[in-house]
């Protein structure tokens, strides 16, 4: 079978290969840019300052500058500087990131007031968890009500529609004023960021339930309560689950804002700090950890979804 047939699944072997490629290719690109000296490498790392007074060993200088100084030195007949091509500081090579990745779990932070990477991560996970849980506990029932009964739809949706255009970060200062400076305002930002979208999305999902199923239920004698709990709820459950997975991804984006208000903490704060010290290997390590964590959670949820909803033949 061809690799490019419209809307046809690949055979299992090529599917696996392509999936692996989707990770291998970017990593390969990164390696090429990092390790092949004549590709990009706009800087020079000084190995031997020579006669140039302001060059220091391990210093990164612009290629052009290095060339000019070398020519100057050659003309004057003094000792030539030496160096190797290098990438800017913000693009560490893969092995440096791997080293940082390992070091972040094994060596304590430089300052005693700072947190370990995993502590920052744990604090972030808690913020997301509570913010998202709170939003879901309130948002999902409201969404289902609004999707099922026109009354609740008219009652909730206009206001929520308005509110969701207000950017969640705008409430940062307010949240701190009301909820203090620790985790609570951060949780509130995650909540504000997800809740309003959640109600609307869940309401929409509920409305998309096949009306023929509702009619079938009515002709089988289902009362109002049964319609809600025995038809609407189980009927939308797989889609609701999918919505929740997508929304959880959004919650992660609001984390960045949430962690910069009040007392700074968490993984995004860790990243900001490390970037400030120009430890970009640590920055990349942290970003990759977030990626791995997010992907793992999502795959786990997808796998659980297949367990929960055996009546779905796809996905």
């Amino acid at each position, binding site marked *: 079978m061809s690799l490019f047939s419209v809307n046809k699944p690949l055979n299992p072997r090529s599917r696996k290969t392509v999936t692996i490629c989707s990770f291998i290719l970017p990593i390969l690109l990164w390696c090429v840019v990092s390790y092949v000296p004549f590709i990009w490498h706009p800087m020079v790392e000084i190995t031997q300052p020579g006669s140039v007074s302001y060059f220091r060993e391990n210093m990164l200088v612009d290629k052009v500058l290095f060339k000019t100084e070398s020519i100057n030195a050659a003309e004057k007949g003094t000792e030539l500087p030496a160096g190797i091509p290098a990438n800017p500081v913000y693009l560490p090579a893969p092995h440096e990131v791997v080293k940082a990745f390992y070091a972040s779990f094994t060596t304590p932070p430089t300052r005693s007031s700072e947190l370990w990477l995993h502590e920052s991560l744990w604090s972030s996970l808690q913020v997301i968890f509570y913010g998202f849980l709170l939003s879901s506990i309130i948002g999902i029932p409201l969404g289902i009500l609004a999707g099922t009964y026109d009354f609740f739809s008219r009652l909730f949706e206009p206001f929520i529609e308005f509110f969701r255009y207000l950017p969640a970060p705008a409430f940062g200062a307010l949240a701190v004023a009301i909820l203090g400076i620790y985790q609570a305002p951060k949780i509130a930002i995650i909540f504000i960021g997800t809740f309003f979208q959640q109600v609307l999305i869940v309401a929409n999902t509920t409305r998309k339930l096949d009306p*023929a199923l509702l009619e079938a239920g009515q*002709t089988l*004698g289902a009362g109002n309560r049964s319609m809600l709990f025995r038809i609407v709820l189980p009927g939308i459950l797989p889609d609701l689950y999918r919505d929740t997975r997508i929304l959880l991804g959004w919650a992660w984006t609001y984390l960045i804002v949430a962690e910069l208000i009040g007392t700074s903490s968490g993984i995004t704060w860790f990243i900001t700090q490390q970037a400030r010290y120009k430890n970009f290997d640590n920055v990349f390590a942290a970003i990759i950890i977030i990626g791995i964590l997010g992907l793992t959670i999502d795959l786990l949820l997808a796998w659980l979804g297949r367990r929960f909803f055996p009546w779905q033949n796809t996905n």
Partner: protein
Amino acid sequence: MSDLILPDYRVQTDAVRNRFARIKKRPVTMEVKGVSKYFSSKHGTITALKDINLTIHKREFVCVIGPSGCGKSTLIRIMAGLEQASEGEVRLDGKAVDKPGPERGMVFQGYTLFPWLSVKQNIMFGLRESGYNKGSAEAEARQWIELIGLSRFENSYPHQLSGGMKQRVAIARALANKPKVLLMDEPFGALDAQTRSKMQSHLMEIWKNIDVTVFFITHDLDEAIYLADRILVLKSNPGEVQEIIEVPIPQPRHPDQFLTAEFLATKKHLEQLIHPANQDDDEDHLNLIRMVPVNDDVGSVF
């Protein structure tokens, strides 16, 4: 067909005439009285149904045919209580119908099984709603599953069944509630010819053995004649009763009867009602097709 000399479809043998006389003495199950239905849209009001009157006796099998868009589905939905009549009313055992209920079971063309429930749970749904406890609902559902021959599939989900199997489950699910009337809107319309004729025999078998009145929409004339005691013929714009035909074929029915003179006579009459002779529009289209140039090696297929 036109070369055959066929009897008049109104000629009934004594057996058939007696049967209809007996049917008419049975109590009235459902009554459609002066039902009209208007839909208002941007382009004005559509009269989907106009002054429909029909009396259905207990355990009768009534089929409805008519051109597409003549209001068949609208009528059955009003009878089910899923839609309100603009004028007139529908009565079940003398009581006016205003909302859906389990005493009027409905089978839709699109199956509408609950995808999250297994075959058994689908059939148990209505039983549980009417107050059966779990154990007795399950026992009852098992009997139905056996009756429709799906014992091997009782724990399968709908997506694992073929169209015919799904529709059998849908019928069992509706009948498990012991409805007085079974309303069916083109239930076999999506099935292939072979499955369809199996399902017809199956339905006949069920109807013979269960105390239920059937109201059945179809666009297949053979199906209507084969199944029905009486056929309600609707015409469109607006949807009105064109004729109510007493099918002159003895019961119980058998597939051999498809080629009897009474059957063909009835079919010829229905053909004339549904597809009147003056079809100038279609003729024009056909003439246009003849003007399309043909470029092939065969030249003529005749």
